[in-house]
């Protein structure tokens, strides 16, 4: 080769070597228990498509629906630094509280009464909760919602006393919750969630009442054996889409902003869709035999009074005190403002 051409080749080679290489697309593997083709799965798929489009293909989302990656506790472990087999997940409270128990504030029975109240508190607590999760290695992309847990029973429940007589399902493996129920006069029975439909089917089953969002009761069909629904919202089934900070830190700032935009759009969509899903699930179950028991007047006042007494018993023991106090303050401020505007 002629020397000048050789020099040119070397120069070009050096120049190329000094250019930043185009970054390979980052694949984010996300696990969720939401079944394929469900409301939540479709929302995740749309968010993933938006990530690809907005980042011009630099971020690719692969969703593993239906809980195929294991329990939420296992999913969290698989996201931990050093394991890193999954980078993201749509987690519900059980998984989120594996990371930080502060989120349990959203699981306090009868603490919230409406979507508006819930989302007001979520919005107010979001910065501090996100910071706590960030310090544990998880970045919050959005908050999700699995519906409002309500009570389905074999016998009609209309009063607090009726509820205290019920053999109430609670998730096995959480002795603190069992003790909390017992200490407050309830009759909890700890079982695997898998056993709910079969136990309700048996006339003398271990449980006669199970908490579930309406959609869950519909999918698992246990409204056919527990055909009464108490029309009081026990608690929202809150969740969040999280990504490991390890993966998040590999993404350019400009792309992160675009991902956040798409994640927020998903959150807004779910806030509306899940509310509709709850309502239409109840309507469909009513067409097939479900009786909805409205609680009004003195009975409602009794539930509300009990809720006010029960909630503080979780402060410090099940929910960090500062988070509980913040949530209570914001919830009461919302109620006060709403009351003043009426």
């Amino acid at each position, binding site marked *: 080769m002629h020397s000048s051409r050789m020099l040119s080749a070397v120069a070009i080679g050096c120049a190329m070597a000094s250019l930043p290489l185009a970054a390979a697309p980052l694949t984010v593997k996300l696990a969720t228990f939401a079944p394929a083709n469900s409301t939540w799965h479709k929302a995740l798929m749309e968010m993933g498509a938006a990530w690809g489009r907005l980042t011009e293909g630099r971020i690719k989302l692969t969703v593993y629906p239906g809980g195929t990656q294991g329990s939420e506790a296992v999913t969290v472990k698989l996201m931990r630094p050093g394991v890193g087999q999954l980078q993201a997940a749509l987690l519900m409270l059980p998984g989120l509280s594996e990371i930080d128990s502060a989120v349990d504030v959203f699981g306090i029975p009868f603490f919230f009464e409406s979507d508006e109240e819930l989302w007001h508190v979520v919005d107010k607590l979001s910065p501090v909760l996100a910071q706590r999760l960030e310090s544990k290695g998880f970045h919050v992309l959005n908050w999700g919602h699995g519906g409002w847990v309500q009570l389905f029973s074999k016998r009609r429940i209309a009063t607090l006393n009726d509820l205290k007589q019920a053999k109430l399902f609670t998730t096995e493996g959480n002795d603190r919750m069992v003790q909390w129920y017992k200490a407050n006069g309830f009759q909890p029975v700890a079982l695997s969630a898998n056993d709910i439909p079969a136990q309700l089917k048996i006339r003398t089953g271990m449980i006669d009442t199970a908490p579930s969002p309406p*959609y869950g009761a519909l999918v698992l069909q246990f409204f056919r054996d527990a055909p009464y629904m108490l029309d009081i919202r026990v608690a929202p089934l809150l969740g969040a889409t999280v990504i490991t900070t390890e993966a998040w830190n590999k993404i350019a700032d400009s792309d992160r902003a675009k991902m956040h935009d798409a994640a927020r759009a998903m959150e807004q969509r779910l806030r509306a869709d899940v509310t509709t899903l709850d309502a239409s699930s109840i309507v469909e179950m009513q067409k097939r035999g479900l009786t909805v028991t409205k609680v009004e007047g003195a009975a409602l006042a009794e539930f509300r009074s009990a809720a006010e007494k029960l909630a503080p018993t979780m402060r410090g023991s099940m929910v960090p005190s500062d988070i509980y106090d913040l949530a209570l303050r914001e919830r009461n401020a919302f109620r006060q403002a709403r009351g003043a505007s009426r």
Partner: protein
Amino acid sequence: MRLKGYGLLVVPLAAVLTGGCAIKRLAISSVANTLSASGDTFASDDDPELIRDAAPFALKTYELLLASTPKHPGLLLASCSGFTQYAYAFVQTDVDLLGPDDVEKAAALRGRALRLYLRGRDYCMRALELRHRGIGTQLMVAPDAAVASATAADVPLLYWAAAAWGAAISIGLDRPELVADFPAVRALMGRALALDEGYAHGALHELMITIDSVPEAMGGSVERARAHFERAVALQGGLSAGPYVALALGVAVPGQDRPEFERLLHLALAIDPERDRSNRLANLITQRRARRLLEKADELFSAAADARLRREPVLSFPAWAFAASAHRTTQFPEEQ
């Protein structure tokens, strides 16, 4: 799902539809009988694209005739099975052929497939109502009692109603009005199996692989799904790719067993479609789907799964919805 014939197609309809009233009715009935008669003109074809283009015309012809003879049992069954097969073979299967970035197109195709399935189901339900008044309402509230009066003559309607309804539910899990009636699908299939277990060369068992692949809490069972697989393969003499793909998607994916998934799909691809010409079209379409599923296995299996499975058994369940209140659970799952 086995694709059966749409029957003979288009006839000089104009002549039929322009005559006097009685003659017209007789002629329509005659054409309807001919069209709805079973045959393998479509099912034995070796050109899926030809059938993709031809089938809509056949289906609209059925509907045209049904407008004049709305209670014709043969036409109702042919319309039910025809719309269901078309939706499965040429709309829903196309979703699998798309790349992972075609989310909007996939959603549109699923929406179209859902509408076609429901159209098919409604033709079967119309036919069943004619034979068992009130069965539609009964299926909602007391599914097992609703099908108790069905006889062996009803098995094709039971099967196709269940196939269309079940397929609609599987892609419409965000629609409570559909999800609520999954027990109706089970009841239809349970009755059909009791009446004629060997119907259509194992078609009932093939469909039951998918139905029994649902989570245990919804009445599913991996063991039963595998037993139906074995029986379907036996009844079909191993000449149909359908059971292999059904088990791969129904059991191997939820269990995150990639070696089994690949083994089953390779077995599906090894079947020679020429050995059973009556089922040639279905095999060709199913094999195209199997090839695509192998290509996109990374979207169905994460590297995480194998490691996890060694530590903890998978408990199928979509009941993350149960994670009520402030407690932790350690189980769940479902399928793609």
